[in-house]
């Protein structure tokens, strides 16, 4: 989780990722931000994120992102 928070901070600094639950709904992460995040997550956690995963439920908070990463790791 620490590593994920670092990635998020690196991509879009100045957001309280530990508590924010509306990264997509409030347009904090736009399409470009999402793609940068996907690329970094894939490299850091060795998972493959498909277009089907690019939904608000998975990207709205650090917590939901972490759950997605754990699920994808479990599926491999």
């Amino acid at each position: 989780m620490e590593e994920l928070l670092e990635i998020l901070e690196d991509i879009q600094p100045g957001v309280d990722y530990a508590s924010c639950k509306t990264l997509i709904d409030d347009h904090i992460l736009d399409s470009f931000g999402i793609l940068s995040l996907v690329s970094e997550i894939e490299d850091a956690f060795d998972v493959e994120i498909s277009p089907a995963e690019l939904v608000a439920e998975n990207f709205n908070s650090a917590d939901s992102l972490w759950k997605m990463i754990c699920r994808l790791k479990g599926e491999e």
Partner: protein
Amino acid sequence: MAYHTIAYFAVFLPVVILLYQIVPKKFRFAVIIAADYVFFWLFSGKLIVYLICATLLTYFIGIWIERTALKNDGDKKNVTKKKRRILAFGIAANLLVLVVLKYTNFFGQSLSDLLHLFNVDWTFGGVKFMVPIGLSFYTLEIISYITDVYRGTLKAEHNIAKVALYLSFFPQIMEGPIARFHETADTLYAGESVKFDNLKFGYQRILWGLFKKIVIADRIYPTVNYIFNDYADKDGSIILFGVVCYVAQLYLEFSGCMDIVIGSGQIFGVKLPENFRQPFLAKSAGEFWRRWHITLGTFFKDYIFYPVSLAGPVKNAAKKVKKRFGRNVSKFVAPTAALFCVWACNGLWHGANWTFIFYGMYYFVLIFIENITEEPVKKLAEKLHINRESIGYKIFRTAKLFIIVLVGELFFRANSLKDGFAMLAGIFGNFHISALFSNIHRLKMDRLDLIVAGAGIIIVTVVGALKEKNIDIRQKVSGWVVPARWIFWYAAIMLVVIFGAYGSGYTAVDLIYAGY
């Protein structure tokens, strides 16, 4: 029987509502399907066979993908491969119909022109195809449905009636919005009774749409046609006036039609997705497209932008760039490749004409520039102590957006690419504002037209500004005392009846997006 005609909102729609309401709940979906097919038949006659075939194909492809996924023999990769093949077949079959019917002549003519450049004497004779209404819209809905089933985010529908309801719902068949399966099918199939509030709010929304369409947009239409079809001997100021009028006409007509469509859906309890969200209050070209024709934008985002960005070759290219130039450069590779595909498709989707392809590429370049300059501009503004929230900066930003939109729509409406460039040259090279003022009454709008259109645009602007601040006029009015409420709605109806551009002297104006 387009949506803005009396035949639709005063005859067809009430008859469907009545029939829907009087039949037992379990048969109401059949009334909607019958209404859908009658509506389609009235425009396209026998071409309804395209819609029926597309519905059957969509239904079977969905089930085929689901069955393939269930036959999981432990080899997940093999199953995914098989599912992908079925999806590719489904998309290709539907796109083939769209491409053949809409683009054969364009591609044939373009090939013929290209061969002439190499002195090859082959001329494309042209083929005449009849195109069913809504083809471009329901094809995208089909792609959305079968892709979602493939991705596993949607279960394949085993009730063909729901697939038929999703693809043919009469209020949205002509101009969208491009809905997702879960947004319409289940609600339409459920056949809940028409609620008084839905009926009231639905018809109020229809009235607002009629105001935009027949009081303002149709009034401006003759001026737009006159200037765009005969711009050669006109001053740049008149051409610019024509472009401004076209932007107003296009927005008011398309968003007005969406009001009628969404209002019609609301009557049956269906919450169709919004297609516009005050686009002219956007801060950039990119944001403008997140507020204009929203459902087309989200379709392209979900089914082209993300899949292209995450495609293996694109990701590999981004990794290579990252190794060589670092993350600050590589982060643009995937989005730019995907953005190019999105805008090429956006341009082509609007029609088989080079003006539309140019329009798509125009926005691709602008949004690409916006993306790569966003950070440097932010830093520069900080360095120069420019307050980006100041009134002055906001005015600059709005003026920039208007210029971008005006130039884009000029090419969108121009009769050819050559005409578009000639008009643009006219605006910049031969501009005398006095020419516009001295000819203003000779541009197919008389004094009353100018006053009504101008006042109408002000009303729409004020309502839009209030909506941006989450102030809903309809909700406000519904809280008034009964006499005040009745006076308001009576006045609104009278406004449309008195100032609507119809009757003798006016030609019925077709819906622009129904042609796409």
